């Protein structure tokens, strides 16, 4: 996958690839929660969108270099994740989804009203700056390599988390929570840590996206964005390592090529949702893994 992504800019438009990579990271972060802990958050746009606001604000108003801007976005997302997670993990299933949705909407309205987000306009013309004061990110290739490094780094980190003893406990909680508790694991704490990790990675994705597009806007905090990341993960395959990446590329490509048909994009997305839920619950990668009999 890494070599494919390194060669990709030769064949495709780099900004499009960077967008896809940001969403792929977002979907991977989301998958960490639903695929490995079994918690469906309907408010992940909160972390994605707010991290992009904070990093855009940091880069533009505070004049921080890009690496610190992204870090401050991720830190904001982690903080928000800790608060939302502490409230939400007390409930399971539908209730968990509803609480995260409610809190995300609360923060969405805050983003609409707060002066520094500039409401409908968003934070525009965010400078990309110089990475470590050396590499000029205004250059498209440099930016692409940076995004790629961030994505691969986070992807490997997520891979490591999933395959660590900690990840095994998360899977145990997903499969049978009362049993995990009876074995002496404090499931609430594990769930909270997983939630914060997922929020942080979502924040990294959002912060990076703000620098790539030089824009942080309301679209990224609104609840359809939460729906979109669920779609990506579902299409790719819940609980598979490569699924969210494949799903994100699929959905972003689809949106890119279907922009000419206007509002039908929503209809197409809806149809994909329905078809996936009814026929391909394992998703693209999940089905592939089933056919090849390997774990992906």
């Amino acid at each position, binding site marked *: 996958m890494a070599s494919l992504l390194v060669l990709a800019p030769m064949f495709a438009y780099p900004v499009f690839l960077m967008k896809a990579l940001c969403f792929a990271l977002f979907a991977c972060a989301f998958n960490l929660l639903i695929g490995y802990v079994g918690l469906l958050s309907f408010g992940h746009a909160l972390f994605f969108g707010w991290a992009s606001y904070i990093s855009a604000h940091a880069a533009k108003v505070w004049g921080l270099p890009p690496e610190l801007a992204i870090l401050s976005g991720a830190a904001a997302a982690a903080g928000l994740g800790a608060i939302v997670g502490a409230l939400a993990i007390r409930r399971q299933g*539908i209730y968990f989804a*509803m609480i995260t949705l409610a809190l995300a909407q609360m923060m969405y309205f805050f983003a609409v009203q707060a002066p520094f987000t500039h409401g409908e306009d968003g934070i525009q013309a965010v400078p990309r700056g110089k990475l470590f004061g050396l590499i000029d990110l205004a250059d498209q290739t440099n930016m692409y390599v940076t995004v790629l490094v961030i994505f691969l780094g986070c992807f490997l980190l997520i891979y490591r988390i999933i395959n660590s003893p900690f990840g095994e406990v998360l899977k145990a909680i997903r499969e049978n929570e009362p049993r995990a508790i009876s074995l002496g694991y404090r499931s609430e704490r594990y769930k909270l840590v997983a939630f914060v990790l997922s929020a942080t990675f979502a924040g990294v994705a959002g912060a990076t996206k703000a620098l790539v597009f030089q824009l942080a806007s309301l679209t990224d905090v609104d609840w359809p964005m939460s729906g979109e990341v669920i779609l990506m993960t579902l299409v790719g395959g819940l609980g598979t390592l490569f699924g969210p990446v494949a799903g994100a590329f699929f959905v972003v490509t689809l949106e890119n090529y279907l922009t000419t048909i206007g509002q039908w994009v929503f209809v197409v997305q809806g149809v994909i949702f329905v078809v996936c839920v009814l026929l391909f619950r394992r998703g693209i990668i999940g089905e592939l893994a089933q056919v090849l009999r390997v774990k992906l």
Partner: protein
Amino acid sequence: MFELFGISSQALFGQLLIGLINGSFYALLSLGLAVIFGMLNIINFAHGAQYMLGAFAAYFLLQYAGLGYWWAIVLAPIVVGITGIIIERLFLQWLYKLDHLYGLLLTFGLALIFEGTFRNFFGSSGLPYSVPPALQGGQNLGFMFLPNYRGWVVVFSLAVCLTTWFVIERTKLGSYLRAATENPALVRAFGINVPRMITLTYGFGVALAALAGVMAAPIYNVSPQMGANLIIVVFAVVVIGGMGSIMGAIVTGFIQHGNIHHHGDRAFDTASRPVRKERLACSASPRRAAIRRCAGTARRLPSWSWPHCSSSRRCSPIPSF
């Protein structure tokens, strides 16, 4: 004319009325949502879209069949309810044995399809629908001015909610329904067609949403995203009222008063600001008390509480090995 806390009664009751009107729609929508969740165990994310379909059905009936508001209020819920039944038969019936989440995702997809299609044909600006002639004008109640149509909305939706509650709590049909949610297998063994009952319940819940849509059409515009704006608040209402609790949904819906999502917020300028603060200050505690009261009744009466609410699952003492 009198004054309360230094605010004219016109402004105060005007605000309260807007809250009550919103409350009527919240109550109707969350009632449908609660009934569907109770019986099908599915969070119907398409509920807002079906509310929108109801308003559009009324609009179509007027434009293409020349049938006015009174026809629409009967026909639109039936038509949209039938589409709901088709949806249940085609899609939802395959999901009952799976996790809740798939129902939510599927109905979310359906909502995207409906809203996308209508936005494609009708844009997002909204279409006008006029108040029926019989309900135009208003009453001067001395302390405030009440438009007839808004009075009608409050009274009619309250009547529908109470009728639904009565049917579920006090009739034979309602007792079958409650029994089927407790233990479908046993009820089937008694010779009652539970799958058909589930289908009809979904149709009924959807019809309630469409009814709310028809009633909303003359107040708000008929627009494709009218449901998307409302659905989040309705979820909040259902959760506050207690998932699957019918009375909870009705009471919370009416109490909600648009405290969270006030349509009138920006329409009123400085004059309304003290009013709102005042209202927030004095409504906070009684409102919470009312919710507690209604949650209390839901606990006391064994009637309409669902077996799969989170508390019962969380409290099960024996872990499943």
